[in-house]
């Protein structure tokens, strides 16, 4: 298959040609376009594949997916929508960071300024809050859909575990962000939520067996030495809590979420893409997880190279090259194997011609021996 690799360079040499091409051609074949996109604009199978493979964002996807993977009635699209909402909250959040200061003196007034003075401040803040609420809802709907379609079953078990952790991270992101406006709603909701922390067994000062544990290790039984104190940075929700939650909300939790998202998407590809009913021959392997995984190496380069070669050299040329390579292969294998291959070829040809089996097997054998001698002669030339 060595001929396939020699694809001629499609990039035009820069030369002044007096404008013989029309405007569209000049644009799509010009240096700027071809330097960015590295493939031309014609609509063919190869370019459609390259649009995905050559793009750092899009090559999250494979070049082809099965038809049920694009069925929104099956997938609901909630996973993708959740990712979109995560990006929207991140972008609007970063914009809000230009005006918001996480201290008890400034937080509330900065929010007031954002809502009333800053141009589009109310719009960005509203979008941040509604995208955040919607993200929590979409994460739950995504979990709902994955469960109802059994898409956590082998080989996708671990991806479900990652997903549950992403759910908890989403709730934590929402919880830490809830405090930041520093109004009555925020501070009391977080007080109610974090009061749970004082009831942790052993480690919370109002939890079961905390006094005994405190006597043992010196931690857990006092309001200023328990897990709630660590969470809040104090015995009540106050200025340290605000700063702490701000760092968690804007830096730490988004980074952890992004890392887990990367693993989540990686596992989708590795486990075979969007789940679907097993294909007929895979019914037997439905409990053998390793057989259901998709090997990228087997699928990606071969398809792309074959399609690419067909595109540039033409379908007929492709068949001739394949035939030439197969012939070379036949010569290089042993005599017995070549005879076998020839026999199979001739039997196939007989079948195609109309099932004429007047020739006996011995006849075939003799014919193939002659054939082989010819080939051996050809060998000398190589």
């Amino acid at each position, binding site marked *: 298959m060595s001929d396939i690799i020699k694809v001629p360079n499609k990039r035009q040499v820069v030369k002044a040609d007096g404008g013989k091409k029309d405007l569209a051609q000049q644009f799509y074949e010009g240096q700027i376009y071809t330097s960015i996109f590295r493939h031309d604009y014609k609509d063919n199978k190869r370019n459609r594949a390259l649009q995905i493979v050559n793009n750092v964002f899009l090559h999250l996807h494979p070049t082809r997916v099965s038809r049920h993977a694009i069925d929104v009635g099956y997938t609901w699209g909630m996973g993708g929508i959740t990712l979109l909402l995560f990006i929207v909250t991140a972008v609007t959040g970063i914009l809000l960071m230009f005006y918001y200061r996480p201290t008890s003196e400034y937080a509330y007034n900065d929010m007031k300024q954002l809502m009333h003075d800053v141009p589009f401040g109310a719009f960005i803040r509203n979008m941040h809050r509604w995208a955040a609420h919607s993200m929590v809802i979409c994460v739950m709907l995504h979990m709902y859909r994955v469960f*109802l379609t059994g898409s956590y079953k082998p080989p996708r078990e671990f991806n479900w575990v990652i997903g549950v952790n992403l759910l908890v991270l989403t709730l934590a992101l929402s919880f830490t962000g809830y405090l930041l406006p520093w109004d009555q709603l925020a501070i009391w909701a977080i007080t109610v939520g974090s009061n749970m922390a004082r009831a942790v067994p052993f480690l919370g000062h109002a939890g079961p067996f905390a006094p005994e544990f405190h006597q043992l290790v010196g931690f857990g039984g006092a309001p200023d030495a328990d897990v709630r104190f660590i969470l809040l940075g104090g015995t009540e929700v106050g200025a340290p809590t605000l700063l702490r939650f701000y760092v968690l909300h804007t830096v730490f939790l988004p980074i952890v979420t992004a890392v887990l998202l990367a693993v989540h998407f990686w596992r989708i590809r590795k486990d075979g893409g969007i789940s679907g009913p097993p294909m007929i021959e895979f019914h037997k392997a439905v409990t053998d997880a390793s057989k259901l995984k998709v090997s990228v190496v087997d699928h990606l380069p071969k398809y792309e190279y074959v399609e690419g070669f067909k595109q540039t050299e033409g379908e007929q040329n492709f068949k001739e090259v394949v035939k030439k390579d197969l012939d070379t292969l036949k010569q290089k294998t042993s005599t017995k194997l070549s005879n076998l291959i020839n026999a199979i070829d001739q039997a196939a040809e007989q079948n195609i011609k109309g099932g004429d089996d007047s020739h006996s097997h011995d006849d075939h054998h003799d014919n193939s021996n002659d054939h082989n001698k010819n080939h051996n002669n050809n060998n000398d030339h190589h």
Partner: protein
Amino acid sequence: MQEGLKNFWHLVSLPDNVPIIGMLGLVIFYTWQSMRKAIRNDRLAAPIEASMTDRVQVWPYLVRIEFLTSVVVILILTVWSVGIDAPLEEPANPGRTPNPSKAPWYFLGLQEMLVYFDPWLAGIVFPFLIQAGLMAIPYVDINPKGNGYYTWKERRFAIGFFLFGFLILWVFLIVLGTLLRGPGWNFFFPWEEWDAHKVVAANSRDWPELFGKFPAKNVDGSMNIGHVAIGLLSIVGYYVAGDILLRKVVLPRTTKDKDIVKKLGPLRYGTVSFFVLTCMTMPIKIILRLTLDVKYVLSTPWINF
């Protein structure tokens, strides 16, 4: 009644509650749609999705769906953000507690649990068990069917239990906590006005007291042996009886497989049994509280169940 309904409408139209109403609508729609597909798939020989296994190119067939969806979602968000302002109430004042004081809406299910269980159970143990139970699902579900299509008949137990846990114990409790819980976390019907001074008789008793004179503490302050005995026996008895019910009736009948427990093996079955039975203590406790005014099943100086 007028005032109450006006109050209810005010609640429903609060900016922060609008997503919850939206979530309710979406959950109802998707439940109906997935069950419709499941029933249709169950009637056919092969699920509908199995007829769609040929491959199509991502560009354009998938990316155009993604593009249109992004445009629509951002459009909805834009209109929503221009139209409805996010809430900003009075500045934080540690000296004044609003009544009711509610956690963010996604934790309202847990806050509702605080009515029936102590904080360490409702706020720490249950969330931890929910997370652990969710993570355990793929490892205890040995049913190879239903992988990649909607069904009901082939996964009766799994889908039934999940629907109960998600729709009733999660979504319904969020809606309850948002719309039907008022000052003092008292229950108010939609047409009732929120009365901060509503008087509710607090005449709850403990489970062992239903069987005789077994208070949690004796008159002299010491622990009542009978109380502890009845409480412990009840809890152990619940798990034993529940396990027998699960093992002999529920699992074999819903999975239509007599040997399902043996196939699961002790580790998997033990996990399923523990999580299912512990999860069911929630609705059982709620029913006991609402009908018999039972506060604790077992009350000790250290922990109360």
